[in-house]
């Protein structure tokens, strides 16, 4: 996977992971992929929900040692 940008949002509480993800996404071009790392459990549902309403696509996600990683493609 070609990741255009990595966002480290670990340790940040809701709403910051999504706020940062949006800012990072604003700087990308359509089709590019943002990788987001977060430790906020709320982000598990909220990041995909945000991506959906913003027209982005969650390509993949994993959960490892309490860190959630999302790969989101800009719509």
């Amino acid at each position, binding site marked *: 996977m070609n990741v255009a940008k990595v966002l480290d949002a670990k340790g940040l509480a809701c*709403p910051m992971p999504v706020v940062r993800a949006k800012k990072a996404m604003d700087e990308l071009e359509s089709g590019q992929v943002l990788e987001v790392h977060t430790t906020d459990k709320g982000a598990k549902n*909220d990041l995909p929900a945000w991506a959906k309403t913003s027209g982005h696509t969650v390509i993949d996600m994993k959960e490892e040692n309490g860190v959630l990683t999302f790969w989101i493609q800009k719509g």
Partner: protein
Amino acid sequence: MTKTISVKEIANKIIRGEELFIVDARNPEDFADWRIEGKGVEVVNIPYFDVLDGIEPYLDRLPKDKSKTIYAVCAKGGSSEFVAEQLEAAGYMDVYSIEGGMKAWSEHLEPVKIGELKNGGTIYQFIRLGKGCLSYLVESNGEGALIDTNRMTDVYVRFAKDHGIAIKHVFDTHLHADHISGGRKLAEELGAVYYLPPKDAEEVTFSYTPIQDGDRIRVGHVVIEALYSPGHTIGSTSFIVDDQYLLTGDILFIDSIGRPDLAGKAQDWVGDLRETLYQRYKQLADDLIVLPAHYMGPNEMNEDGSVAERLGVLYEKNHGLNISSDEEFRRTVTENLPPQPNAYKEIRQTNMGKLHPTEDEQREMEIGPNRCAVR
């Protein structure tokens, strides 16, 4: 800086029947599952991640009057501050963020005095508005008993201390499947006796005192009498307090009746439930005040915030007490049941002492609405 408000203040407003306009900033899935409810509560779902650039797309769902008070809530209290700021940016002048969010809301207990006992004493109802759980404290001559407590044990401990009450007895009407009981912990902490109906306690891993039909426990000047009343579970036991109050556990609610299926025994227990509701309770005095372990909606709450009604009134008005055919009753309580409470199997195992979840895990297990009743 956004203004904040505590869940206690919100609880008091709801109990007083005040009108509240709430913006719930969680994702639509969580909002659909459960939310703040109350007689005067109007709540709209505006996910925080939909308003990162401003609240404008949602203006048509908000009050036209910008001076109207708006309370924002989210899962834990972070995103609601963000949404509150967005509301202020859009010109709303009186916006509060609810501290601790739905997490705090789900754990808040609000005590309401139900009444005096004729032999001297008081009975209090602790209302868990976020989950619809009701627990009780009976006090007489400085002694106290707790019934169907929640896991937030500090609330009962503090209340008893503030009122100079020595808790001697802790009861559970049955092995709960919707919330984690605070009973065992409270009994240990306060040096009280912990009673459970033995038929519900066959698999528990700790020692307890069995409560049997007809047992009479003295608390100060009053007596709590046990009445075996199976149906929600095989052990379900009701308590008659001072010949005035009937604590029904999850057998009989104000506007609904218990469901027999949470231990996977719907067909086996439906006959017990029928007999309890249509024979055992029927023989009791009509003027007993029914105090259930749950309520489902704001319509079951009285003007003073209490959830209580005369048994005679329930025999007139509660649909579940007015089903004449056995077959129809069986169908009502075994078919088309609402979804089972979240994590009810794990909650039962925790209450048996078989699982030992952390506090975070316990909170997670209990999150969501109450689903112990059938209408």
